[in-house]
């Protein structure tokens, strides 16, 4: 479970931007090339040498996809409660407060309206740095609201996922967000508005098993871990090594689960093209409907 990895990793508090190793220079974890950190950031967190896709901060993601100046935030108006009075090594409210402080947002998600190459969209971006991108009541509610508002405003919905799964500190309520986000997509479907999901590293557990894989079209970034159960859980269950590339984007493409693996560089254009092609149908339908059975074949 990616969540477990997240917990382990985050014991020793890390630098502000956890998406790429710190320092002026870094050694690429994929190709071992020495990269100038600024070059990596300028290249949308893709290794300029080998194309390895690093996780990227929410703000950079929005900048990547939304047309300049078009993003208008919708999320942020709500924050989590502690419905279970959950305490592990620290109380849930404290954990939340630290994350709020550190990441400057109420929870592991940002949503908003934007244009993407001119197309009106609702944009959902998950923040894996905030409690492992786990989906509790707030994440679920923000996604549901974004889907509903997009439907009302006639926007396509684009969701960029990154999550360790459900937020166990909210117990069964977090499980229920899987159903909540799913039913919230229905309004979009009823209005013939596309929902395109973009799965990024890592997308696991309850997020993968709900709205993330219900995209009309599903794209994934190269090399992303995408799963229901995490590799460690599976390894513990079956006591065997996992196949090479197991649960990575390319593997899942081969298994028929993805529409395509799209590099970050090509992502915006591909989303624009896809949304345009899907939306053109309802436009044509609108224009030509009502003529009915008049024309004989």
């Amino acid at each position, binding site marked *: *479970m990616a969540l477990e990895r997240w917990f382990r990793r985050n014991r020793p508090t890390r630098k502000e931007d956890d998406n790429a190793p710190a320092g002026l220079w870094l050694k690429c974890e994929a190709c071992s090339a020495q990269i100038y950190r600024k070059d990596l950031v300028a290249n949308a967190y893709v290794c300029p040498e080998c194309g390895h896709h690093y996780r990227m901060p929410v703000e950079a993601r929005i900048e990547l996809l939304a047309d300049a100046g078009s993003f208008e935030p919708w999320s942020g108006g709500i924050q989590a*409660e502690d419905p279970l009075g959950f305490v592990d090594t620290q109380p849930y409210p404290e954990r939340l407060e630290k994350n709020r402080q550190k990441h400057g947002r109420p929870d592991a998600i940002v949503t908003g309206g934007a244009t993407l190459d001119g197309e009106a969209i609702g944009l959902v971006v998950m923040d894996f740095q905030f409690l492992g991108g786990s989906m509790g009541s707030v994440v679920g509610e923000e996604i549901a609201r974004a889907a509903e508002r997009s439907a009302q405003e006639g926007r396509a919905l684009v969701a960029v996922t990154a999550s360790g799964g*459900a937020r*166990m500190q909210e117990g069964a309520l977090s499980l229920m967000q899987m159903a909540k986000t799913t039913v919230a997509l229905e309004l979009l479907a009823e209005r013939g508005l596309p929902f395109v999901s973009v799965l990024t590293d890592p997308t696991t557990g309850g997020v993968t*098993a709900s709205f993330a894989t219900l995209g009309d079209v599903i794209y994934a970034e190269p090399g992303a871990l*995408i*799963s229901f159960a995490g590799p460690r859980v*599976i390894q513990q269950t079956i006591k065997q090594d996992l*196949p090479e590339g197991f649960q990575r984007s390319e593997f899942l493409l081969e298994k028929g689960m993805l529409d395509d693996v799209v590099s970050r560089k090509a992502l915006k254009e591909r989303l624009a093209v896809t949304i345009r092609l899907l939306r053109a149908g309802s436009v044509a339908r609108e224009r030509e409907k009502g003529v009915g059975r008049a024309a004989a074949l």
Partner: protein
Amino acid sequence: MPLPFEKPIEDLEIKIEEMRAYAGEQGIDLSDEITLLEQRLERLRRDTFDNLTRWQRVQVARAAGRPTAMDYLQGAFDGFTELHGDRTLGDDPAIVAGLARLGERSVVVIGQQKGRDTKENIHRNFGMAHPSGYRKAMRMFDLADKFGLPVITPIDTPGAYPGIAAEEQGQAWVIAESIRRMSRLQVPAISVVIGEGGSGGALAVGVANRVLILENAIYSVISPESCAAILWRDAAEAEKAAEALKLTAYDLLELGVVDRVIDEPVGGAHKDREETIRRVREAMLAEVASLMPLDRQALEAQRRERFRALGRFRDAA
């Protein structure tokens, strides 16, 4: 094998038995003593089961001898006719589905089935479904919609199976699809958590108009053991995790996750299977009857609203 906290109860039961045997052998009258002991037993049972800790309820929910989905299919319904296969990948024994009569009505039943012994447990994969199982469930949803049959789903699974084939075949995808498909049903749907409601693997067949739960059943986002392994790095802390997760029937009722708790006989469902099955049957009959007047749109809308509303949050500071 009694559960740990059942030991005093069992000891007392044995004592009463022994006293009875002794009285018979010796031809003496110990009926007053026996009656007293029986009253004590009854009190002990009640005290124990009225005050189970969450972790103890987890143990009851998983107890050997607790009625499984198949026991309900055969005991609470008539003429259960099993339908096999998902028409795609196979036939998953962890999910048992088919047609049956509940009272006067035909229904579609989709049950998650653990084994009643080791052999069956292996055959049923301990009630952990593969994607094939959820595809079978979706095929049943289609059948139910087509023929206007209410859907009943007895839930009892540790979770969807975490394995290589399951991931390759899109476990996450199929759970998501099943959630959506079930939410779109045009017929009444009732879920009954009869044992373990394990995470997404349970929810995949739990998007019902009414979600019922047996008194000692549990429904959780994660098993206490896995939760403990993550939070305290020690699966042995499961008891602590069970407390923290608030996964019992009455916890869930308070959270709005379930709509109704069905009382178990004192001593737990495994101590009086028939009575448990009878109570579940009564509850299902009542719930189906209450939903039948709703038309297709109303049923779908109610289900959608029910799940849309779940969650707790407040305005950001």
